[in-house]
């Protein structure tokens, strides 16, 4: 989308523990948006993650990904990061390198377009090899 995309996944964005992987992301807009205005798709080493099991942690709270649309009061400040928790049977270990494909979609709530006045979609696909922390 633009220059702010480079901040979506930092080099230390990926972490591993016994339950699975965690991926920290920052938004690529210039201002805070709530989770209701965001959506994402994620592939780890080329395999799409199971959306039903994924959770998002924001401001110290965890929510199922599928609830994001309802979370209009959970704001991700523009300098903060949210964490995607991906449960896995045999997660990569610390020090492993994983190929991450993360598509972050922002639905801009004050820019309405088209005859049905839907929020502008500002989506960005980030592809990165990240070292598990």
């Amino acid at each position, binding site marked *: 989308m633009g220059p702010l995309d480079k*901040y979506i996944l930092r080099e230390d964005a990926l972490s591993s523990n016994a339950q699975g992987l965690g991926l920290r992301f920052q938004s690529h807009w210039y201002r805070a948006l709530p989770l209701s205005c965001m959506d994402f798709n994620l592939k780890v080493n080329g395999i799409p993650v199971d959306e039903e099991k994924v959770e998002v942690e924001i401001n110290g709270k965890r929510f199922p990904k599928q609830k994001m649309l309802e979370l209009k009061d959970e704001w991700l400040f523009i300098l903060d990061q949210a964490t995607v928790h991906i449960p896995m049977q045999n997660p990569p270990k610390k020090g492993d390198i994983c190929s991450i494909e993360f598509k972050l979609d922002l639905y801009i709530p004050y820019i*309405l*377009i088209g005859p049905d006045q839907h929020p502008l979609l500002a989506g960005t696909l980030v592809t990165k090899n990240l070292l598990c922390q």
Partner: protein
Amino acid sequence: MSIMKKGNIKLATSLFSYAYEWNSGQYTLEDMIRKTRELDLGTGLEIIGFQSLRNFPHITEEQIKEVKSLMEKYDFEPVALDANIDVGIQRNKLMNVDETVEYIKPQITAAQKLGFPILRCQTTAPAEVYKKLVPFAEKANVVMGIELHTPYSVDHPSVIKMREMFEEVDSRVLGFVPDMGTCMHAIPDALLTSFKEAGVTDEMIEVTKEIWLKDIPTPQKFQQLGPTVAAMGATPPQIGRLNMAFSMNGRQPVEKWAEIIPWTVHLHGKFYGFDEHGDEKSIDYEKIFRTFIDGGYNGYIASEYEGSAFTDEFSAFDQVEKQHKLFKKILKKINAE
């Protein structure tokens, strides 16, 4: 014979300009404000609530104290706090009028508490919403300055409705914030360069320029551009980039602003980049300054650098400094006449 100058324009900076630097996480709010002072980027400051303040608009006493003390320490006049009118926050259902009114109220209160006389509002809410908010804003003593960002030129149907409501209600808390991206005479070179970096060809750029120059509504321009450049091999992301030329760059004649100057409470000095002589070739700022001064506008213009949307080639601090040099040169010329 010298022309009597009726108005006066003062210079400010909007922290929106530093989005690329801010999002890096390497600067504090104080760093941003201190740098703005060190570079002498005006006497006024504009802040975007949802950009600079965590938990906005539900800010704490500590945040209020911090902002006020920074304004004082670095000698800035608080000019405008920017609200966002997020009517699509639920994505699948737009807010109704009353919900929008309630969404804006805490942002008016935040402006009041932070000491900003103007709350920048947006055209995403219809005139009815602002009419309902007049008593609340009057009590808070905060002016709702509705930004006229392209495609919302002075004769856009929604703006006409707003103007009619302003005339009818006649309140000191209603006003406009014209954004200079609405009255451009060319697509900026800096934007065109960024298109080329995205793999867009000269041929596609020529088509984009031709469609941009047509006197048709913006949505029709999108409809014409997409299939034409797709046939030339443009990918969807490239078409998305080219669409930016229509969504960011309006073609309202500068003189048209005269119609709404009595309602103008603040100005957004949108800009995209400069040539080697320090000129912004796509926006005629001298004409803009003359139009507003002759029309009796008395207030600020805040620099709004749009670079973070399309290029990381330049430092936003340098870019704003260049714009202020241009503004000072223009003001000096006008004041010497």
